């Protein structure tokens, strides 16, 4: 405990550099208005695609943690016979590998656009983290195979092995989250890059890192719960009204507690990092912070009603989903205001890039691709057996 307190109180290696001052020109103007048009366009694309990434990634992080906890608690397999957690965990387990695949595929687009806008900062952070960063690849491969193992009823049979596999997969997913958080924070500290390189130091002593990790990990639950509720309502895994009712309370509790912890960590981040606090309340960040607050209120309201009623009415599930998406979208912009203000004028400043060739072809194939994906979804949906009303 005392170690934890000393981490929180100590001079933070990632915060110390913030003295380099934020760029007021960014904070005092509407978001994106200060950037050259092409840079703004690429950054906007990076954010839109990041929101899609976060959607799947939240399901992957919170879903794995939930399945691990259910496995440890012994409420793992089967359907209604095992009570509420049984049915929910079965649906989540079934969809986890696909959700992680989708998170990875979705991650490629922001990875591309971030490299255009923040090439130097992103690459330098990757290089400074080196092995810790590159480890996410084998870690993700092992995590996904563990998730497939969780689905293989004949291979993983005892409670202990189920718990071990579940906890293993969850720990690996938390590691990946930690790596992304550390990468982001290191990219925000250009003046420390040479000293970080010289000492090969990790940022694990940074309270900001752990608070941010807590924010992302706990913050993954509200959206995960909303998507999982949606799946149950739509009859995934054969869930009927009983399963929905049984899962309602678990989901509502998880979402509310996860949201509250995430909020606490966010406040902690704001206390630790003046830059983060200033960006959130700045002219550029404020409107989006308000959108996020409104979203949080809508989601919290919806989950509270669900908790009281112990049912999953579609309207409330839709409200919870919309609310969480507003939080993710709003905070994505606030996150970017912070990065822009902090990196402006430094070695990691965003670049003014010429507009690349081939955009028309991209738009054409994006339209065709969306059409084909819509066709696939429709075809599958039409083939599914009808769900109970």
């Amino acid at each position, binding site marked *: 405990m005392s170690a934890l307190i000393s981490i929180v109180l100590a001079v933070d290696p990632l915060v110390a550099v913030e003295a380099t001052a934020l760029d007021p020109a960014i904070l005092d103007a509407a978001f994106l208005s200060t950037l050259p048009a092409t840079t703004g366009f690429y950054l906007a694309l990076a954010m839109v695609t990041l929101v899609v990434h976060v959607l799947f990634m939240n399901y992957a992080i919170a879903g794995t943690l939930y399945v691990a906890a259910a496995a440890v608690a012994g409420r793992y397999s089967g359907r209604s016979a095992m009570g509420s957690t049984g049915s929910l965990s079965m649906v989540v387990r079934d969809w986890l590998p696909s959700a992680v695949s989708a998170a990875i595929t979705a991650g490629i687009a922001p990875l591309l656009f971030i490299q255009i806008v923040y090439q130097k900062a992103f690459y330098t952070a990757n290089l400074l983290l080196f092995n810790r960063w590159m480890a996410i690849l084998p870690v993700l491969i092992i995590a996904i195979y563990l998730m497939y193992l969780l689905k293989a009823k004949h291979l993983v049979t005892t409670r202990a092995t189920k718990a071990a596999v579940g906890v293993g997969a969850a720990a690996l997913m938390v590691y990946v989250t930690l790596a992304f958080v550390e990468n982001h924070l290191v990219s925000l500290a250009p003046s420390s890059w040479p000293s970080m390189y010289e000492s090969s130091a990790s940022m694990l002593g940074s309270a900001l890192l752990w608070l941010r990790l807590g924010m992302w990990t706990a913050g993954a639950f509200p959206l995960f719960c909303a998507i999982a509720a949606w799946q149950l309502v739509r009859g995934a895994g054969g869930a009927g009204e009983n399963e929905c009712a049984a899962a309602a309370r678990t989901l509502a509790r998880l979402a509310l507690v996860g949201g509250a912890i995430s909020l606490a960590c966010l406040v902690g981040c704001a206390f630790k990092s003046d830059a983060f606090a200033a960006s959130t309340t700045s002219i550029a960040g404020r409107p989006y912070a308000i959108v996020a607050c409104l979203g949080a209120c809508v989601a919290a309201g919806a989950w509270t009603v669900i908790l009281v009623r112990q049912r999953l009415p579609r309207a409330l599930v839709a409200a919870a989903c919309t609310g969480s998406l507003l939080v993710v979208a709003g905070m994505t912009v606030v996150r970017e205001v912070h990065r822009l203000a902090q990196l402006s004028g430094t070695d990691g400043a965003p670049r003014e890039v010429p507009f*690349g060739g081939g955009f028309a072809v991209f738009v054409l194939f994006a339209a065709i691709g969306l059409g084909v994906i819509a066709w696939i979804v429709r075809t599958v949906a039409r083939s599914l057996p009808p769900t109970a009303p």
Partner: protein
Amino acid sequence: MAWNRHNRSDGLKGLVHLRAGARGNRVSRIGNRWIDFHQFASILHAIREQGFSASSRYISPMDASAYIPAVYPVNDFGPVMKGLVIGGLGIFHVFLAQFAIGGGFLIWWFEWLGLTGREPLADRVVSSVFRVLILLSFVVGALTGVGMWLTSIQVSPQTIGLMVDEFHWIWATEWIFFWLEMTAGYAFFRYRDILAPRARLALLAIYSIAGWGSLFWINGILSWQLTPGAWTETHSVWDGFFNPTFWPSLLFRTVACFVLAGLGAAIVINAMPGFTRDERTRIINRCSIFFLPMLSMPLLAGWFLEVIPADSRSWIMGGSMTMTMFLNIAAGASALIGGYAVIGLWRQRLSMNGATATLLAALALGATAGGEFVREGIRKPYTVREALFANATTPAQIASLRVSGVTAHDPYPLRNRADFPTEQLALGRVVYRNQCAICHTVSGTNGLTELMGGWSIEQKRLNVAKLQWTKGFMPPFAGTPSELEALVQYISWEYAERRAGWPESRDPAVFAQIARWLDEAGTAPAPRAQELAQRAESPR
């Protein structure tokens, strides 16, 4: 507000823009050509007079990216050459990805055989092979793909940065194809049993075409690195994309996809329980149609060799022992697979048991490894031909770095500075890190102490100063005479196992001699310089 001004074509073509204070206000411009060293030095002098700083602030009077490479921290991979890391991962990824692409078509074909009643066992083949495909390609295949990207950043951030700058919309288009592949693949995997036959076939068609489409897009970017073609002049994405090696390498890789799918299916079918020997033979013989396109491989390889640059061709035709050997491995392994599969299976005289299929797949891995090694190797001394050298400098930057020095722009201190007894040795290590570490280690794979430790000190100075002439696949040295001398001292000190009391070398005559050699060597790469010399000699 301040941001990094990025001027792509300047850095690449050797254009120099001078900006006086205000944004975009050009004072002078030197045309699209190789910059004369002395001219450049005087320009640099002029810029310095105007108060140039290498800062990335937009208000800088000069676009720094034109002649100063972006400097990144360099990681030490120990005894492992960086090329081996990216190459090793690349081989693995290409092998898996090609199996997945060909596998899509193979499964589509079996699904069709089953639906039309031509093959009663098709259903079982489809479900088994597709399960393997999903488990392999959607996990290891996808993550090694992301891994290629992240490893490229570790090995040469400048190269991947340039590729992203030029081709991001192509990559974004490829990303659409990833989504298509994933959506169709999972939809088929999860819902095959409840889907109508036509829908199943359609999903497999989408999956296969999307997989091949991703090959189509990435092939344009990778082949551009070797043969940028008209892009060098026009900087048009499509000139770069449909470059001279685009079609031969696309077709060659497509054939490889089919072959790997056939071999992979043969392994899976042999591993599946419940088939009689005759059934296995029949199914594997059906797969053999996927080996037939191999007949076109010699032709496609010939086409590829025909259109690559002459110097690249010369490396694999005996100019470089290692590259020639790898080409032979690729050709030999392919010939063995082709001989066995095409002659034996297509004529339906042979069956292929699990061991044989695995052996042939191992040979195919060898062929992929040989092919990828050759592809990486023949680009040297460039990572993007005519635009970026292997050590992440542009041709224009070489000239400037000979004046300003390569270490002057590197803000990263040495990690273990205390191990270096003199400033000169420490400087030498920083030069090594910036100039050599991309392709060499100190004393591991392709180690410099091994390669040049035994040379006399004079030989070392001469050969490094004329690096591009020492070996044509090395770039010209990009640094000042004192940096070159520091490098030579550092390598000698490492060769002497870090002997104590190593003296600093300060003789002005030595620096003057190195400067003369650097001037004689010029700043153009050897093949380019040869080409220019030939052009100058040829009668008008």
